[in-house]
């Protein structure tokens, strides 16, 4: 059996022949340098999600940095494998086994050190980026710990199957289907849901926050360019999840002020019958309905179990 045949010169394999390591290194190094330069200079400025807001540029920078780190690693593995597959094929008629290398402490130790170093620096980098960008545009729960100074513009995002509506509590709490934001001011999105889990994804703004029923999820960003952006639901929420999208606008602060004031007046009658602004809403609690139920004598369990058809189906 071939497996049992001893190799001809067991120890000679290590040093004989060309220095494969040097060759692989010298193929890899220029490739890595070129790839990194291309990523940083050519590709980097066009990486998603763009630079429309502070969190978007922050994410673009993160993706760029990680691409610059990842490209050499990938290229190293690919170069190595390509080199190995070309150089160390078993030639026709050769039935011998390879050299019996069981391991190499130095190689293993340096590999572990290098990968651990990359990983730990990525962790530090990611944490710094997360904290310094005030949560990186991601949902931070009801009481965010990394928030920008000052008073941000509050926009409540109310998700339901299958649309988003927006409330502006600093402008009388009107609720509208239009998302309009001022340029250059921090915005706090208070994201909540009325039924199932949705996710508010303002793609060009680099904001994503899950909308959970009964909870308030805050995300911060500062729009830095005027224009239109896409809002999509990015958590599967049922039948028409694919159609749950709309568009928002970033406008100049003065245009925003006039839009908000006009809308406030326009919607004043509607705002009056809305439930008062709150961080979360319970869609099953509707005052008028409650009154009717109490009048009919089914206003509660009265210390007994609910009748089986009663518990609320959200």
């Amino acid at each position, binding site marked *: 059996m071939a497996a049992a045949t001893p190799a001809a010169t067991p120890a000679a394999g290590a040093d004989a022949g060309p220095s494969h390591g040097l060759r692989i290194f010298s193929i890899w190094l220029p490739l890595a340098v070129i790839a990194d330069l291309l990523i940083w200079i050519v590709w980097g400025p066009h990486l998603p999600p763009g630079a429309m807001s502070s969190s978007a540029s922050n994410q673009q920078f993160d993706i760029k940095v990680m691409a610059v780190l990842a490209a050499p690693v990938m290229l190293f593995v690919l170069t190595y494998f390509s080199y190995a597959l070309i150089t160390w094929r078993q030639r026709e008629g050769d039935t011998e086994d390879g050299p019996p*290398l069981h391991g190499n402490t130095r190689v293993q130790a340096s590999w572990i050190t290098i990968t651990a170093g990359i990983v730990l620096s990525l962790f530090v980098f990611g944490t710094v980026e997360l904290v310094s960008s005030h949560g990186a545009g991601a949902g931070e729960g009801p009481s965010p710990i990394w928030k920008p100074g000052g008073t941000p513009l509050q926009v409540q995002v109310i998700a339901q199957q299958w649309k988003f509506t927006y409330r502006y509590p600093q402008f009388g709490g009107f609720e509208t289907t239009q998302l309009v934001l001022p340029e250059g001011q921090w915005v706090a999105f208070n994201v909540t849901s009325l039924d*199932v889990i949705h996710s508010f994804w303002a793609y060009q703004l680099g904001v994503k926050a899950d909308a959970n029923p009964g909870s308030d999820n805050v995300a911060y960003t500062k729009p830095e360019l005027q224009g239109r952006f896409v809002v999509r639901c990015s958590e599967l929420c049922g039948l028409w999840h694919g159609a749950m999208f709309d568009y928002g606008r970033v406008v100049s602060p003065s245009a925003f002020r006039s839009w908000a004031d006009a809308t406030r007046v326009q919607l004043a009658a509607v705002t009056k019958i809305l439930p008062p602004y709150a961080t979360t809403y319970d869609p099953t609690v509707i005052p008028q309905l409650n009154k009717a139920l109490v009048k009919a004598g089914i206003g509660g369990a009265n210390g007994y179990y609910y009748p089986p058809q009663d518990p609320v189906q959200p």
Partner: protein
Amino acid sequence: MAIEIQPEKVQGPGGGDPAAGRPSRPWWLRPAVHTAVLGAVIGYVVGHWLGNFLGSNYQQLPLSDSSDMPIVLGYLLAVVGWLAGLGVFNDPLRQMAGRPIPVEEEDAAAASGLARYFRYSLDHKVVGIQYLVGMIIYFCTAGLFAMAIRTELLSPVHHVFSSSTYIEIVGEHGTMMMMLMTSVIVGPFGNFLVPIMIGAKRVAFPRIEALSFWLTPCAFLILFSGLFLGGFPFGWTGYAPLSIQAGPGADSYAIAFGLMGISIILAGFNIIVTVICYRAPGMRWSRLPMFVWSMLATSVLMVLAAPVLVGGMYMIITDRTVQTAFFTDQLGGSSYLYQNLFWFFGHPEVYILALPGFGIVSEIIPVFCRKPLFGYKTAAAGMVGVAVLSFFVWQHHLFDSGINPDMRPLFMLTTELISIPTGFIYLVAMGTFWKAKIRFTVPMLFALGMYFNFLIGGISGVFLSDVPADTTEHGSFFVMAHFHYTIMGGLIFAFMAGVYYWLPKMMGIKLNQTLGKIHFWTMFIFFNATFLPLFAVGMAGQPRRVFEYASNLQTINDWVSISSFCLGGSILIFIINFVWSTGIVREREVGNPWQSRGLEWQVPSPPPPGNFERVPVVLSGPYEYGTPGAPPVADLYPPAGVISAAYAGSPTAGAEA
């Protein structure tokens, strides 16, 4: 007090008593698939009636004359009936009644036909083949759903399916793949090969192992039957308020996923005990084949993670039927609870899907590099490290959800740490390739494809672990491309490597190598053509599971769809090869075609009942290629008395004596 010591009796698998015999019955009275189907039908009818009887006061489903209760009880009793029909309970009941357990008929030389594959067989080799065929069927069914998804995504606005049909297809594809493919390697190769690789004549718990297989057709059929109940609109994750709100198809999701959870607990349990307790003398931990290490690590994950899934599914079922409120926030429940439960299972699960792939490729490359595995301990440490760390990363699926926002740096760290042990697998591969004598066989090609794909999958995973970058990538096609690279590109490529490598062993039949190479190259090219562009699609802002997307992404989506059809064609080549080679040509392969040192290759193909005539004594590790003077891997016919010497502590000396 004197203890009566009985002489050891000869036992068949499962504790059968050869003296008991089995009454010879005509085939239609023997428990097999047909009686199981009968039992399932009876069980469903009884359960449905019982559910209507018990639950008629519960909320009626809209547009239906029944509540969830009859459906759930129908499914559950159908499973019980299915198992009873298979004869799962016969022997335990006999034992409870104190009657002798007859030996399985399979062990008799007569029962070598196809019929044994349709029975509750206690032979781990039969279970392995059952799993293999089952898994290929499940994989292809779910793959057809994937192609249906891609058909719908050919156009951003024109629809092939209605939105409800589309969402059903998405859910069926995702769930079927994610729940059934957990066993795609553990099932066929783990059950078949682990005992042979460790020199055991049988597995520790043949009944549990067989049960774990026979639950998978139940799970598959129940999940599939969800389509007839209107499907379920929540993908494979089943996030809670939506899965409580959804129609009766959600019952089939919860029951099927829960059953599959039970199945993988059982499968994992059996493998853990087998590996720990059934190793042949001389099979030290440092000689364990890497595939067995990966099976052990995977099984530990299965046993520890899947109970959480079963619990979560149970809570969904009770929320839906008896109106508990685990996940309803107006009644004190929490939708976060489900997310936590699900991902506490879900993240170890993706390593249940990755580790077997690592195991197969690490097992295969030394054979075709003709070199020892580089850094054996590093490889084993990598698998154990991945397995341990995988329990500490689940909240990276919830970075944007608002849960524990201040814990995100920790989960970012653990997630990135997991790339260190994963890197070990690459270090081991690269070291093994160093100055190797590489043979480009079909299994080797698939193993190389796995390393290539998993590299992309793993590196894209690092992008996802970074919270700021994840804000854009989360829930988009980027994630989808990422895990298809790790699961389809990693696990399924490794599965294919395993099929081409071990099928000669398992069936004694050679697969056509030319078709195999065509299969590899088409699969490799079209897999990458399908999923590489999806990273860009996701980065460009397309969320997962949508049926409408931005019209400027149509070209790239069409490219992906057409590639995916070609990928389906590549799988078809595999099916043709499989059926052609095993069913029609049946070219025998009895020896050791790959000149492997693996213990499993030292026995005839297919292995005889009982695997080894005598318990072998393992003399050296499985990867000693090119080592001068390396002893053969095992002594298959150790002289009498050697085993007891081995237990005395020096197996090698005992064997040489």
